């Protein structure tokens, strides 16, 4: 039997790799994928908890997370396309209109 802690560590690692990608990548699409990675990291721990606690609520949460991820991807990518149309770049460091 694999201990729950292992799953949690795996989940945390995936999540933090996602955070790392989000914090450091230039390409906005990759940043977006990093967000998906973070969501997946969380999903792993939710499913693991659900399994070990024998309680399906965790998986219901996963279900909703996937729903929200789909919605987020649709909207986010539409925004990226609109952005690209206006600025013809996908690099975050070239978008600094809000600079103080």
């Amino acid at each position, binding site marked *: 039997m694999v201990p729950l802690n292992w799953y949690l560590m795996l989940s945390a690692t995936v999540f933090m790799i996602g*955070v790392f990608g989000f*914090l450091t990548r230039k390409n906005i699409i990759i*940043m977006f994928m990093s967000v998906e990675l973070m969501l997946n990291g969380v999903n792993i721990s939710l499913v693991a908890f659900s399994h070990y606690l024998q309680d399906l609520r965790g998986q219901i949460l996963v279900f909703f997370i996937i729903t929200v991820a789909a919605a987020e991807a649709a909207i986010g990518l539409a925004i990226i396309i609109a952005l690209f149309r206006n600025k013809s770049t996908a690099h975050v*460091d070239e978008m*600094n209109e*809000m600079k*103080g």
Partner: protein
Amino acid sequence: MNNYLLIPFLPLAAFLINILLGRNFLKEKAHWVSILAVAGSWVVAVMTLVDTMAGKTINQDLYSWIVSGNFKVSVGFLIDQLTVVMLIVVTTCSTLIHIYSVGYMHGDKGYYRFFAYLSLFTFCMLMLVMANNFLQLYFGWEGVGLCSYFLIGYYFDKKSASDAGKKAFIVNRFGDFGFGIGIFMIFLTFGTIYYEPVFAQAGGFANNTVNFLGYDVHLMTLIALLLFCGSVGKSAQMPLHVWLPDAMEGPTPVSALIHAATMVTAGVFLVARCSPIFSLSETALMVVALTGAITSLFAATIGLVQNDIKRIIAYSTISQLGYMFLACGVGAYSAGVFHLYTHAFFKALLFLCAGSVMHAMAGELNLQKMGGLKKYMPVTYLTMLLASLSIAGVPGFAGFFSKDEILWLAYSGPSPVGKLVWAIGTVVAFLTAFYSFRLIFLTFHGKFRGTHEQEHHLHESPKVMTIPLILLCVGAIASGWVGIPHLLGGGAHFTEFMKPVLGHPEGHGTHSEEWMVMAVSVIAGFSGIGLAALFYLVRTDIPVKLAAGLSGVHKLLFNKYYVDEFYSFLIVRPAIWTAKNILIGITDAKIIEAIVNGVPKAIGGFSQVIRKVQTGFLQHYATIMATGILIIIALMLLR
């Protein structure tokens, strides 16, 4: 019986339909929705009346509106004898006036808006009279106030109209302030604001006193007087009567519906509804009676000399409302409500006739420029004449019975000021007859005094306007017949009907005294008519001479006792001065501006320094956020 809900909600539906679809879809057909809705309400109201006559009353909650601790308010309906009379008055007048408006407002650019407001007004008024708790009453109360504001200022591009609307709104706030506190006091005292428990418990508090502004005040007197404050404002009694004459800036159907037949009577309705509270306080009743009496005398005297046809009727309204309060003040609530009921018909009729005259005169209001309209507009003349006979208290007409009952109960009742108010009432009856017929004679008799163009324009109003006049005229004559006193062989059915709600005051007088009172009022009425005939038909030079001879008095009356000027001096100007010099000059310019300008300046300076942090890079912010999380987690672990 459950379809009573249709009564208020049909007009509400009409309002919603008109306001949402009126501008683009209904346009010139907007009146259909409103008329059908109000007529439907009338039908249901009549059915409700039949049920109520059979002894069925309703008191039930529709749904919970506010629940907070032990404070609970529902939208609920109480239908008893008093309510049903008000329902009949409101829906009947409203229906006829809606129909009349089709002709009167024809071609107006805000046609749909007008009907929408009329329907909304009807809804609010019905909610007011059908409420079973004070808060819903207050909702309807403010609702009719709001509609009144909309409708007085209906011609909002005219400054006087919008000013009049504001004036009505603001003056009413003075009264409503008291009313609001009254409701608070009721909740504080009884722990509920439903009529039923409040009135049932009221007797138990009859001798309690309460510390109010440092004085020990009789609790019931305080509550009654606070509630009466609201009545004074809404029913245009002294000293808050100033808004009603100005409200004549609105379209005439509005004046008829709101400022004669329904809304202004809400004050009387309130006093009648709260009669269990008022009856517990002699002081409050005395105040009510005296306020009513003085107001009626005061307004009647002003009415004597005015030249504006609508204002005369407006002052007459104030005067008659005073009569109703007078009745309530001497404990004769049912007589007051009876007068309310008859008054609604003949006063609405008077206003609509005035509207008809205006229609013919192309908006001219000055009596001195009219005359001899009799032959041009026979229907209007006849109906207005009958209405005036009714208001003058000529025997057989509706006004006679109600007025007589008030005077008799004032004379014979237990009230300490009964005799005094009776005397005033009789004088007012004389004055009422006089100015009503002054209006008739100046308008319809004699020679036409206007311009040639106006004369050419004179015509009878269309059928859609005259038919409501005729129908109302029937009411003005016959509505009193339900209350013919025992003395004249009648059954006094009205009083009997009202007995379960309002009780029945017993007059302590002999039959001969009753005959005497009746005779005096009839004589007063006829002498008023006679004097008016003498002055304005036979010896037209007398009024002019009198005005010249008593120029001081005439001027005082003509300028309405300078009340407006007095208020302007006492309240309006100091308020404006304070606003200008203290609020704008010192508070605004020196204090608030200093803060308002200083804070952003300081922030601006500070932000010049820290704006460097804002790099505009999304990831810098995210990194900072992540660092924050790191620090928080680390701190939690180290703790």
